[in-house]
């Protein structure tokens, strides 16, 4: 079991040492049992830190945000940032290191192990408890979860409410860290791509119907992109939210800027956005599942990115996020790369 007291002690120690400017972790939320990200600057503030199965957020996005924000600071504080990372989050750090977006000294990684289980899926848990108001979820030693509701405590087998990505997860222990809490327990994953294979097994007509129905719902709020740590481009090529305009950008440049998709949420525009994003994340997505969790219309976005992860493994024997020194998937090649589809 991850001992929260040890986590807090380490957080306090590293803050007192002055080596980090703040620590990003999880704290109690104000409106439900789900925690919220917290930024702790004072050593006394570490009391706010919590660790429980509802800590689903991928905090590495805030490292990316800080990297961008700091460019505008006149006297930037360039100390490292302490961050609590689960196994999946640590893979995200590896990808950021691989792409040289951050340096190793920019982060102080406090890893936590998911041990035998993982994190909960909020919807599955709420459904399982049939609308009872949930106060708290905690880990139990035996691989179950204990849920505290208004009616008391209930034990629930973890596999009934685990997030889908945890069921298919290969990294239940952080792959890169400065200090780690919890034990490394080897987990056997028989079907790492079960969700993708389920869709692949559908006939072509049903597959299209499935995606057409799901992607028609999209309102293009871009929450999936905003929450993804790998979507760090200043100017998103498929839909600009920050068109880098300078005072000396000519009117002609602005008028001729290529608009790949229109702003309106038409099905074909939505498909181009989601497919382009999936391909841009090929070999980079580490399946933290945040995109799917935040989508207000409950679109299964994870299935697209997971497909790319599967193809990276099947076609090119490429594993994402375990090695910060490997080349990126799409700007490297092997002589044995398949070419049977090429005439």
């Amino acid at each position, binding site marked *: 079991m991850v001992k929260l007291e040890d986590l807090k002690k380490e957080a306090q120690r590293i803050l007192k040492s002055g080596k980090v400017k703040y620590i990003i972790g999880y704290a109690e*939320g104000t*409106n439900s049992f789900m925690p919220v990200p917290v930024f702790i600057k004072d050593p006394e503030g570490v009391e706010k830190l919590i660790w429980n199965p509802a800590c689903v*957020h991928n905090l590495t996005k805030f490292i990316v945000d800080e990297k961008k924000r700091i460019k505008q600071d006149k006297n930037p504080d360039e100390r490292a940032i302490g961050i609590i990372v689960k196994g999946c989050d640590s893979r995200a750090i590896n990808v950021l290191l691989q792409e040289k977006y951050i340096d190793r000294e920019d982060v102080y990684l406090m890893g936590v192990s998911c041990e035998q289980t993982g994190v909960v899926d909020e919807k599955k848990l709420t459904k399982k408890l049939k609308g009872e108001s949930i106060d708290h979820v905690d880990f139990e030693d035996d691989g179950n979860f204990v849920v505290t509701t208004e009616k008391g405590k209930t034990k629930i087998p973890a596999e009934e409410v685990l997030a889908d990505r945890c069921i298919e997860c290969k990294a239940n222990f952080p792959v890169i860290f400065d200090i780690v809490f919890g034990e490394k327990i080897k987990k056997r994953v028989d079907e790492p791509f079960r969700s993708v294979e389920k869709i692949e097994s559908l006939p072509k007509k049903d597959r299209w119907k499935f995606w057409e129905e799901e992607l028609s719902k999209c309102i293009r*709020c*871009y929450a999936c992109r905003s929450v993804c740590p790998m979507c760090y481009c200043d100017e998103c090529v498929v839909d600009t939210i920050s068109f880098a305009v300078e005072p000396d950008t000519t009117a002609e440049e602005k008028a001729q800027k290529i608009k790949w998709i229109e702003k*309106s949420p038409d099905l074909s525009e939505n498909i181009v956005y989601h497919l382009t994003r999936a391909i841009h994340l090929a070999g980079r997505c580490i399946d933290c599942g945040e995109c799917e969790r935040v989508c*207000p219309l409950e679109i299964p976005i994870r299935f697209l990115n997971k497909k790319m992860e599967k193809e990276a493994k099947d076609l090119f024997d490429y594993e994402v996020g375990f090695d910060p020194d490997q080349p990126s998937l799409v700007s490297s090649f092997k002589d044995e790369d398949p070419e049977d589809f090429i005439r």
Partner: protein
Amino acid sequence: MEKILQKKSFPKWLEKLEAYEIYAPVKNDSSWSYEAINNPSDIDLDFPNTVQAPKTIINPQREIFLEFCRSEDNTLEIHEVLPEEKPGVIFGVRPCDAKALTLTDLVCSGDVKDEYYGRRRRQTAIVGLSCNTPPSPNCFCVSVDGSPHSEEGFDILMTDLGDRYFVKSLTKKGKELIDLGKTLFTAPKESDKKELKKVHTESEKKLKRQIRDVEKIPPKLKEMFESSFWDEEAMSCLRCGICTYLCPTCHCFDIFDEVTSVAPFKGYRVRTWDNCQFPDFTMHSSGHNPRPDKASRLRQRIMHKYQYFVERYGHYQCTGCGRCVSRCPVGIDIIEVLNKVRDYG
């Protein structure tokens, strides 16, 4: 006019409303949304609240203003496209969402009239369902001059009394709808009226969250414009835009031309929703952006709802539906933020 409608007669009433385009909540897996109804059995009025407010019907996300094309003799033709003239009814609207429509009316049908919004608004009747229990653990309508059984913005307000609905008509349009189903409605008994009062009074006590002393907030916000409070609060904001797109009172938009076919040349002038939490929202063509950071955008959203709108129109622009609180990926809680604002300094 007050009537009783047995629940089993509700589908029969809908059958009498063939001349109307009917919208109502429909269940999709684990959430609900307002959809056009062809089959009364699709409707699920036993719902908390929908993910998106009924503003999607009155103020759709994509709306065509003009259609332009090049005809065979190479002249450019432009046609205005107005909303289809078909009377509509939206069933199952919660009081917070109906009040939100009256607030948007102040902007879109006030001194300046948005004809597209106005047409849809005028031809759509709003039939409400009062909230016997709070639809969301984050509802706080009472704190912002609302109530779970408020009649503001409705043509008809229905209250669920178990096996029957207490139906109250509030406008001429509402009366017309009830008249179409005449024989299905009965007069309410004294016991019905007593039950209604009991349900309404109890519903107000069930809200779990509140903003205390909300009237102290607008003047406090004005003082706090330059404060570093906003930097702290916005630290975890991901500028994802969910709060604004789901908000029933938000109505900002963008207009641009979409060319959908080059040969033959054809296109549309389109209006879509825009989102003040996107970094590009206030981008000027010179390249200057007055709100480049998350803190200024969060401040903008909260001040617009609780200070600018109050100053201009005398109402809070928030109706307490709780969607932004429930759906924020990082748990930024407007109720907590406002409670902190009130106690700041």
